């Protein structure tokens, strides 16, 4: 196999696998961790929906990422992605909350500085803004959904056992929506950087697929699915039993709000719809699912007026991560580009 192609596969496998192993836990963690949904069911639903999301709706966020930079060499794309991956590993090693999306933006910036390419400040500014309003939007959505569901539950007096059955269905449905949105939005982190280089070099892995982007999305989403199937169970059990102490209804709302926010930052049709009606349309770029989830959890805490349960230390850490992640990624990417 061609060395650049081998490097591509290794990069995609690494990025996709880690995304699948970690981020699928945010989607199905509570359901599997509390044993409401079997891991096999969760893994199957999540894998299928991630692939569908990536292949059918992955273009939006990937094109947003391409607006920052166009890379014609597979090696450069791989190095940028690997710098982002290395940053994620480093930050995780120091137990700091980290976003792959932010690491990737930092890596691209580091690459551009190293190659003396002009930085698209306006694009970067709109991306930075999403790091703040992504979680805020998730928080507002979850708070509203919580209030609506709370009111419905209070009025309808659904029997505990009936509610339990609904919860199970809702958690699977929300998990499917979350996985779809994860595939649609975060596929850009895995293969988005390779579209221009593959198109420029006319490389095709599956000749049956005419569209290069679709082909890359399929490969990337399969890598994510591999991560979900092989390693996400451990993370899901940890999320469900240790960190995510929410009621099943609240957990469903968190997953749904996160999915809606990710979808908002991925859907081309929705973007066009909003622009045509002169409504504020968020940029189509990959956003952090973990941070959107944190925003959604805080939204529920606010809706419940449980101010004391908000973990301020975690908030400070996330805010620090907004600065530290892209800066570290930029530095690592810059060093990689200068050395290699």
């Amino acid at each position, binding site marked *: 196999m061609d060395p650049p192609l081998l490097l591509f596969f290794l990069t995609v496998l690494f990025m996709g696998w880690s995304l699948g192993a970690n981020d699928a836990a945010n989607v199905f963690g509570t359901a599997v961790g*509390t*044993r*409401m949904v079997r891991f096999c069911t969760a893994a199957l639903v999540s894998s299928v929906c991630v692939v569908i999301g990536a292949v059918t709706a992955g273009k939006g966020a990937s094109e947003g990422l391409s607006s920052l930079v166009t890379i014609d060499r597979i090696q450069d794309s791989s190095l940028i992605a690997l710098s982002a991956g290395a940053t994620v590993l480093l930050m995780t090693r120091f137990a700091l909350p980290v976003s792959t999306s932010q690491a990737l933006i930092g890596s691209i910036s580091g690459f551009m500085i190293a190659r003396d390419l002009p930085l698209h400040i306006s694009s970067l500014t709109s991306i930075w803004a999403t790091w703040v309003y992504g979680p805020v939007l998730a928080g507002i959505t979850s708070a509203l959904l919580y209030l609506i569901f709370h009111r419905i539950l*209070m009025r309808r*007096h*659904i*029997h*505990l*056992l009936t509610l*339990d*059955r609904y*919860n*199970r269905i809702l958690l699977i449905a929300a998990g499917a929506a979350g996985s779809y949105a994860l595939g649609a939005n975060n596929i850009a982190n895995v293969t988005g950087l390779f579209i221009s280089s593959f198109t420029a070099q006319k490389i095709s892995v599956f000749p049956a697929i005419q569209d290069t982007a679709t082909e890359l999305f399929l490969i990337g989403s399969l890598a994510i699915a591999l991560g979900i199937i092989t390693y996400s169970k451990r993370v899901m059990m940890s999320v469900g039993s240790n960190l995510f102490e929410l*009621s*099943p209804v*609240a957990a469903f709302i968190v997953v749904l709000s996160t999915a809606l926010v990710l979808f908002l930052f991925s859907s081309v049709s929705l973007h066009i719809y909003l622009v045509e009606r002169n409504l504020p349309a968020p940029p189509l770029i990959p956003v952090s699912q973990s941070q959107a989830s944190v925003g959604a959890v805080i939204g529920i805490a606010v809706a*419940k007026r449980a101010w004391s349960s908000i973990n301020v230390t975690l908030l400070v850490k996330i805010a620090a991560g907004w600065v530290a992640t892209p800066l570290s990624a930029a530095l690592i990417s810059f060093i990689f580009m200068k050395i290699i």
Partner: protein
Amino acid sequence: MASISEFLACVTSGGEILKNSIEEYLVSNDELFSLSVKKIRTVEHEADEILKKVKHDLYAYLLIPDTRSDVDRLLNGLDDFIDAAKQLLVLLSIERPLLPEAAVTNFRTISELTCLSSSHLAQAADAYFSYPQEVIQKVQQVIVCEKNIDMLQEETLDVLFNGIPSLDLAQKTHITRFLDLLCSLSDLCKEVGKDLMISALKRGS
């Protein structure tokens, strides 16, 4: 799951039978008392059978382990109440303690309050499944009953040990044992109620 309602009906019925049985014992209506003891045996057996079915359904259909353990604990607590009520009546029918006239009214009131307490508890348990926000109010009524029973228990003990010099120590101890058994039923209701309040608060979140 209709059997939960049937089980709760057994709890209420158990409390009622207990109250009526004690009344019949106090007025020395032996025939009706024996019939009541038979009734409580039937209710206890019926409750056990329903509980088996409910527990099977609980493990087959209730998916949240935390909620399942809360429901399981609640049902076990209620079952303990029926068992203890039956045990008390069976012992009463065998040992037949001689109750002095001065203690009769308090025994009667305690049994009525115990019946009321079990009825409030069954209502609280029923509310837990569909109206969790009403549980606290109902459990508070259980707690009030228990407090009143505690006061009556002390008063009865005082009467037994200081108010009736003719009563010998063996008789005093015998009556005290039954008084403790009767009063422990409301303690049991209170404990089950307190756990239920926590479970309801968890459901409300």
